[in-house]
């Protein structure tokens, strides 16, 4: 299994939630903050909110109290698909040994300017 919903960080399993009575517990959202223009949104943490509109507001209140951000993303934790840590080798071993993808591989041209 290479995917599946996750909660928390890059996290643990979400409790399955089918249609049910409205529960008092709010779902989990992952929060991404862009700290300034020109930079990517970076994962900051998570929070609970009843819906997307409240989630983005709660994120503003919780994760940008000290001018930490200029833009926010919130994503339902259950919508994040992660790679399977057990298939780590098949996923992430391949680039190892392909040193020729890095500039440092090419040593003969060392010292040539603007290259």
């Amino acid at each position, binding site marked *: *299994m290479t995917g599946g919903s*996750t*909660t*928390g*960080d*890059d*996290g*643990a*399993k979400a*409790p399955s939630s089918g249609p049910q009575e*409205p*529960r*008092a*517990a*709010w779902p*989990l959202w992952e929060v991404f903050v862009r700290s300034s223009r020109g930079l990517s949104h970076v994962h900051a*943490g*998570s*929070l*609970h909110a*009843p*819906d997307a509109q*409240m989630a983005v507001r709660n994120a503003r209140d*919780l994760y940008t*109290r*000290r001018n930490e951000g200029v833009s926010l993303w919130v994503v339902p934790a259950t919508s994040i698909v*992660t790679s*399977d*840590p*057990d298939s780590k080798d098949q996923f992430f071993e391949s680039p190892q040994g392909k040193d020729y993808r890095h500039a440092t591989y090419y040593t003969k041209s060392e010292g040539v300017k603007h290259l």
Partner: protein
Amino acid sequence: MTTTAIDAGSRVDEDTAGEQLFNELIAQDSRIEPRDWMPADYRKALTRQISQHAHSEIIGMQPEANWITRAPSLKRKAVLMAKVQDEAGHGLYLYSAAETLGTPRDKMTEDLIAGKARYSSIFNYPVRTWADIGAIGWLVDGAAICNQVPLCRASYGPYGRAMVRVCKEESFHQRQGFEILLELANGTPEQRAMAQDAVNRWYAPSLMMFGPPDEDSPNSQKSMEWKIKRFSNDELRSRFVGMMVEQVKVLGLELPDKEIRYNDETGRWEHGPLDWNEFKEVLAGRGPCNAQRMERRREAHEDGAWVREAAAAYAEKQALKYAQAA
């Protein structure tokens, strides 16, 4: 992971491989991330520690929040509000780290209000005067920071990251406490007495925040092997005493401990005896404010239930509306 009866054999292999990787990562001082294999005891110990830490932040809001409406200047009122609000934030960062281990926040909250979970027993002492707000910031937050800085390198990734954020924000908490005491110490004789009295009362409990002496702390060893904890209780306590000895001079106040001395041989600061019986009593629920703190937390949670339900119901109705419109 889908595990069926047929998989049972390969599952055992997976666990062995997982354990090997886990041990390697710990040995390399790398980090464990949420979906990695981890020993059940590691998960359990972390869940317990992080959730207790989160509960402490949340219960810890109360003693200080009690003084928000009475803060003696508007600046102090704003600072105190910001500090108590930060504590809610820190509780949230920590709950979210604990949730990555598989326990929903709901469950942790239930355990707390059912009296099944612990929080730092320091918050079961009453905040008697305004100077206590200063002493809490200086001593209690000071001890907390001492404890927390090494936790930024805890082997569990989400915990370490939460602690980095917490430590960054808490540096102002200790300073504002120190400044409250400094202002009082330089104020009228009454104010000065108030400051000394607060330091007298909060000194020993803040030292006990580091936990029992090493020889009585059976969990510590395992926690250090797992690199959750980096230093022993006594080590951190000694380090804290050394810092306070210097800082109290700037305040022009005294620590209520005549036995503080630097031991050249061990390279550690030593302090007078602490009343561990009292510590155990307070931990067991017999502190002056245990019942009050729990009651208030329970009340807030129960009084808020209809609001949380309303928002959840609204979200469901809206989702249905969009689904039908689509």
